[in-house]
């Protein structure tokens, strides 16, 4: 099973230049989405037949904080002029949506919030997600972003055969 992470505080723009370079929508994303997007690129950049629509891969993103970092940015804008560009990222599952859009993954995409980082719990929930008969692999990530330069990440690309 492939696993990657991004050290807390790393330059996400530098990682974008290193791994991607041709997806300017990246710069509109909140930090949570940028992290999920980059972790996915690091995991699947060399996969064959990338960007062909597929329904057999799930995107399952876990955290404690959800999108609270971006929520604070929106709440600040709200005092003055509420920003629609910030508001659309005030949902914990936009990161899984960004990953699905980039990769044309039309399978399940979900965001879960847990009290704390607990790998056993995460894998229980991932195994449960594989009850969907369509799902053959999953992008699984813990992305806990407490500010724009402080986070803990861990991401895996897992096949059904790795778990059962």
């Amino acid at each position: 099973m492939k696993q990657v992470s991004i050290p807390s505080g790393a330059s996400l723009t530098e990682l974008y230049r290193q791994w991607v370079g041709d997806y300017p929508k990246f710069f509109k994303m909140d930090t949570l989405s940028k992290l999920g997007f980059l972790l996915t690129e690091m995991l699947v950049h060399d996969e064959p037949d990338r960007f062909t629509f597929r329904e057999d891969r799930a995107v399952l993103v876990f955290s404690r904080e959800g999108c609270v970092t971006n929520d604070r940015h929106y709440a600040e804008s709200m005092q003055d002029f509420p920003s629609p560009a910030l508001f659309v990222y005030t949902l914990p599952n936009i990161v899984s949506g960004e990953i699905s859009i980039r990769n044309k993954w039309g399978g399940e995409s979900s965001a879960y919030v847990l009290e704390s980082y607990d790998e056993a719990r995460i894998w229980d929930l991932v195994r449960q997600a594989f009850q969907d008969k369509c799902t053959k692999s999953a992008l699984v990530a813990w992305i806990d972003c407490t500010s724009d330069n402080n986070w803990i990440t861990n991401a895996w690309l897992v096949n059904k055969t790795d778990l059962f």
Partner: protein
Amino acid sequence: MTKVYCIGCGLVTPVGNTPSEVLTAVRAGKSAFRLYDGWPEPYYASLLDREGFEGPSFFDHIALQAARTAVQEAGIDASSARVGLVLSTIKGNIEKIDSEDVSLAAAAATLAKGLGVTTAPVVVSNACISGLAALLQGVRMLRSGAYDHVIVVGAEVQSRFIVTGFQSLKALSLNPCKPFDAQRDGLNVGEAAAAMVLSTRECEWEIVEGAVRNDANHISGPSRTGEGSYNALRYVLEGVSADELAFVNVHGTATRYNDQMEAIALNRAGLQDLPINALKGIFGHTMGAAGILESIVSIKACDAGVVLPTQGFSQMGVEPAVNVSALERKTDKKAFVKLLSGFGGVNGALLFRKGGAR
């Protein structure tokens, strides 16, 4: 595969707190909408009455009230190590963002404590399909064999945060919303809490199958081909005849794009002749509560032998057309599909069927 049943439900809504009160209101087209002063723009919404409430969090209060009612009806011991808890909400206690821990994890911990649940809760926060995704999560937890009962709770309260956000996207209507209507011009926000206890213990209503699919298209605009919604429908209806279904209870937010997208998905799935209805004209968009609230109301409608009316609809406003139930109709069928879609490109479908023992 383990069969999963609904053995208890609880509601907190502006039109009633029991299924029979709520069903009576929906059948009569009675809602609690009114125009509220905003920040500064006014907004039209269906909000709960806070008069007399003095606790620390209205969100925590209504979530617990709905959950307790469901647990009581189910007659289960919430503190058992075989009872799980799933919370569905989008923004939880967001109105306290300046002063408190507004993480959804904190809201779930408070709810678990209030109910006496001893297993670790999970929050499913999948935008507007959260409630449906949370019910599916409950089904999966039961099928994993680790639980006997799972309490699934959805709740949302409205706030400056949410209202100004939707206003910034120009998604709100200043009038009663009109799902699927030619004159529809946006959604109304709503408040509610709804809870279901799911169980392996046989009861009348079963959640047979569910699916979540992504459009892989846009984070805030629905697919022009209804891709994810169609794929979710296709998955839950595999091997099921449309003749068996009483109706599809759709998302029907009354935004131009959502309703058009659902019409395309329903047509692609061959369901254009099946009655469909939407409940946003009664409750508004109750976000994290919607999937559970609208499923409970649909169950009670089927029990009463009716397809509920779609408040606000009068003239077909989608192409290709679908069979919108403008007025109440009779049905003797005992199965339906609940459909939802949301930001992040997510879509969900659940198939409910009555057939188990009482």
